[in-house]
């Protein structure tokens, strides 16, 4: 289990617990469940990299305690 922090810098900061073999889409769903936004509207970014839904966190090398930028479209 790892914990990642997602911050949209507009007043929402979510700490999500998840497995490393979860996909980015799963993470988005978890975030959506906690914040109440539609998961399809969520964009996860690190600098200019937009994380794609079907790739696991492990493969993106997202580790425990990492910060991920949270955007909406």
């Amino acid at each position, binding site marked *: *289990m790892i914990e990642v922090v997602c911050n949209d810098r507009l007043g929402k900061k*979510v700490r999500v*617990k998840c497995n490393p073999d979860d996909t980015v889409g799963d993470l988005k769903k*978890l975030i959506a469940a*906690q914040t109440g936004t539609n998961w399809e509207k969520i964009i996860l970014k690190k600098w200019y990299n937009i994380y794609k839904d079907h790739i696991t966190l492990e493969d993106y090398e997202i580790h425990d305690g990492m910060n991920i930028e949270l955007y909406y479209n």
Partner: protein
Amino acid sequence: MSEISASIEETNAMRARLGLAPLKEGRDTSSSKIAEDNLKRQREEEARKARDEEVKSRIAKSRNKRELNKARVGKGLGEASDEDVDDVYKWTMKSRSKEKERQAAEAARREKELQELDEAYQAEYGEDQLAGLRVGHDIADFQEGEERILTLKDSTILGNEEEGDELINIQLSERQRLEKNQENKKKVKQPVYSGYDDDEFTLGKKKSILSQYDEVLGLEAGHETFVLGETNRLKRGGGQDGSGSHSVQGGFSTKDKMSQKLKEAAIALTYNKTLQAQDYYTKEEAEVTFKKSKKKKKSRSRKPDSWEEDGNQEESAMEVERPEPTDISELNFVDDEDLQASLAKARRLATKKAVKTLTPEQIAKNLAESKAMEVEEDLTQKGGLIISDVSEFVSNLSSSAIHIPSSRAKGKEQSSEAAGTSTSTSINVSKEDTDMENAKDAEEENETHDLKSRTRAESEAAEDQDVDMNESKSEEHKPTDNPLEDEPLVSRGLGSTLALLKQKGAYKVGSAEQEERARIQAERANWLAEARLREAKLARELAREKEREKEKSRDKNYSIRDREKDREYENQRREQMLMDEREARMKNYKPDIKLEYIDESGNRLSTKEAFRQLSHAFHGKTSGKMKTEKRMKKLEDEKRLLGMSSTDTPLNMVSAFQERQKAAGSAHLVLAVGNRNTVPSTLTSTMVGGTISTIATGGRSGTTSTSSAAAHTSTFAAPNHTVQTNLSISGVHAPNREKVAFGLKRKADPAPGATQDETVTKKSRNDA
């Protein structure tokens, strides 16, 4: 800002709802654990290995020790040997025998090896092995029963590649070499130069330089050779080695060759008896049966083919039929020349004849005539003996002419009349300056006439002396006929109009600029004519070419493609030619350009005026009233000047004088009377009262005796005219005359001065 976070249970609930696996407990699940395991295993492995190594090395050590110990078995150096250590003899014997044994074994081994080798070789090498080897000698060099040793010939690697191995006998080749060298030595003694340039005639291999001094070092290439075993395959069993077999083989080979040759030359005696007679020969048969008789070739290199001949004949016929196309342009330029040439010839003949047939009398006559003519000409040129009213007039002219305004003359009429009665001082005076000018004009005109006639004479080569003669005669006549030439009438034609314009000076002849222009124009005309001629020539050439092409195209062998190609080429050539032509033509092209500015009334403007016009048009303002008026006046004056008669004054004084002279029947006029040198006003009395009284004042009587003596002379009293003449002044008293003239001019100015001589005026009045 607070973080939103969920506990593990909450998260797991969410995950369950979303259909995801629950969170795995523990921080690192898979990879780190595996890695740790791996590390542990690795370490264990390594440890085990190390143990094994240690054991192994220990075992090896012990084994080595054991072996070492084994080698150390036996007697040591320090220990004495047990058997006859002291017996030297025994020891040497023993060692010798040992040596012998060893050598024997070695020899036996070598023997065995050699034997084996020999056996192998012997088994393989036989007569067959030699077959195909080339021997570098003639077969005749080997005698039967003779034994020769053949060796491989020296050769380079490349040579060997090319030719293959060759066997030679050293003795034989040596002998050959010797013979050759001796021959060469003999050659040296003989003269080398044969007189023939052999090198030129020897075909094939060229001789080297000073070949007679060459020494043959080895066997030359190209010597006779034979190949071993070529024929002896058939005859096996004649198992003789060496040369004996060779000779036999050689004999066989020559026989074979002969038979081969015979076979090749054999003629079959059988023939096909059932062959039917054929109507036609094949080509080969024809060649065999009919030998073409060699025709003697004519000097003409090639006889044209039938069709070509036909064409030629046609052409010739056509040539006969149609006349040569005449070029009009060319004729225009040429035919005149022919005429000229013939004329010149005729003239030459005529002159020759004349010279031949001339008798002495005729010559004398001719001479006299020519002399007379010369005299006449001289006279005319000097004008000494010709007496005409004009010449008289001109000779008597005073250098400064008298100018008499007509009005003043009128005013003085009466006084002059009066003077006429009392005094007869009259002078024969020349006319006014205008008249003088007229006379000059006339002279000039004569000159121009002369010039014209001269040019004509130049241009017309046919007429020569006669024309000149005529011209001179006309020159003679003209001045006597009419010195004051009348203005030619415009109504008579263009020529006379031109003459009038020339006379008046409206049209100037012979200015440098005009000449230049004329020259340029002539050049241009010339150029144009040349260009036309060239064009005509070109056109003719083109037409001819086209015709030729047409003829060519009629020919059948001339394919369409060829024709097209030819045509294209022709077109290109033609274009090139045209371009060249144009360029050449333009080389001498000098256009005649003259800028002329003309104002609105059609007057020609000078550059200055033209600029003024332009400037006015540009600035939109014209010159002021005064200036315009001035200019207009000038223009008008010019116009009036042109309109004026060139032979008379504006007031027609000359004609009046002439009329008067006619009426008086005298060659002179009296312009002044009395010793006061006044001009009488009766000069123009004709206009006033129909009475003419002209009084000429003579020189002042006081100044010279002659003038005073001659001052008073006759007075003619015609019913209506009174003429008082004074002959006082003639060519004899030139200085006086001048004086008079001066005085007259001075006195002529004040009007009242004219009345001083009252006698004259009174007389004239009385007459009136």
